[in-house]
């Protein structure tokens, strides 16, 4: 878990009203789960929420530290299970993924982008310069009288030469393919793991699209 430094402040280091001690105690007992998106479309993160009311049945056992509802950059404490959406396409993705690996006991690739790169990896067939030129310089929607510029600023994460699957950057423990996987599929994996059953995706629910 990161500590803020002079250049960045994490949300969990900001002043906050202390949580009710009983609630905090109850939450400390639970299995901590987090999900973050790298280079993806956030569809898989939405699929996590597609568990709908089935999620309520898990809440006796788990607490979700990070999801689309709690859009924090870094998890405030160590998690038992981390879900990763999206592949690695820039330096910020690398940093976030490594941070998650260091702070999650089990890390799971969720969706085509995390598993093999997905739609963003379609740029792997061409040189990065060609890709950026197509997007910003030779784009059919480029403003005709403007000087074509490929955005560059120290605050914009540098893009990687190719898009990488998560497991080519850090060790990933399990993989849930799909674009996106069904909420029910993520639920099954989560339910199996928190109840001590092995990871298992039978052919009937395994999907690559």
């Amino acid at each position, binding site marked *: 878990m990161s500590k803020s430094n002079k250049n960045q402040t994490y949300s969990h280091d900001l002043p906050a009203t202390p949580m009710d001690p009983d609630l905090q105690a109850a939450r400390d007992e639970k299995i901590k789960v987090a999900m973050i998106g790298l280079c993806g479309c956030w569809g898989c993160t939405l699929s996590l929420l597609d568990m709908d009311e089935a999620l309520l049945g898990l809440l006796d056992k788990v607490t979700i530290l990070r999801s689309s509802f709690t859009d924090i950059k870094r998890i405030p404490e160590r998690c038992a299970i981390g879900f990763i959406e999206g592949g690695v396409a820039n330096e910020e993705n690398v940093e976030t993924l490594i941070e998650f690996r260091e702070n999650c006991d089990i890390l799971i690739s969720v969706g085509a982008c995390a598993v093999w790169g*997905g739609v963003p990896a379609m740029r792997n067939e061409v040189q990065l310069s060609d890709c950026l030129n197509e997007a910003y310089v030779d784009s059919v929607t480029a403003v005709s009288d403007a000087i074509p510029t490929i955005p560059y600023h120290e605050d914009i994460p540098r893009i990687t030469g190719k898009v990488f699957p998560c497991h080519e950057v850090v060790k990933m423990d399990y993989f849930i393919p799909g674009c996106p996987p069904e909420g029910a599929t993520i639920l099954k994996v989560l339910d199996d793991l928190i109840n001590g059953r092995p990871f298992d995706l039978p052919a*009937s629910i395994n999907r690559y699209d």
Partner: protein
Amino acid sequence: MSIEIIIDGESVTTEAGTNLVDVAAENGVYIPTLCYLKGKPCLGTCRVCSVRVNGHIIAACTLPVSEGMNVEVNAPDLLDMRKALIEILFVEGNHNCPSCEKSGRCDLQATGYELGMVVSRFPYRFPLREREVAAKHLWLERDRCIFCQRCVEFIRDKATDQKIFSIRGRGTTAQIEIDIALADRMPPEQVREAAEICPVGCIIEKGVGFNDPIGQRKFEIQSVRERALDIKDSAAESGHE
């Protein structure tokens, strides 16, 4: 001639010379295949049906059975080896299921599900092979080709029996080619047959895209394993008696 062979420890009675893939299926043992088509000459290109016979690894579709064969299909090392073969095919081309017209109707994808592939253990190569769009009624998404050669052998010009499809080059530079003049003479049903015979999304019929809604696509209605084991239905389905 009636003979006895052993498949995964079970004694099975069958006719000598029958294809091992078919014998196994008749006895409820699924052997995955990609290039093999029941009733057609064996191609033996994809190796996904590899099993162990009397201690040796062999592609089951290439093997007519004979008396006393000891066949292992579902030993753990063989299950993993066949899965590895599927994983190799996934990284050698660009098998982007979410954007592929063949998704849900694709033998490679369906076999991946059946063999429990969730990721490839090999690095993805992202090859760039130019697509061929010159023919009137179909086009080739070359980076999806797995070089099974079904189209090369079984789709031929009606008048001359010449091959319409061919493979040019070798190794990593090999690619599928199409004779445009012959292809433009293909009747509509042969165009459809070519697209359907392709076990991946390489041969695509023009004007036909994502026709079946998700949930009602070929392998969602009946899995590739069910199709392989339900001999009568799968023969009727693919039209090869």
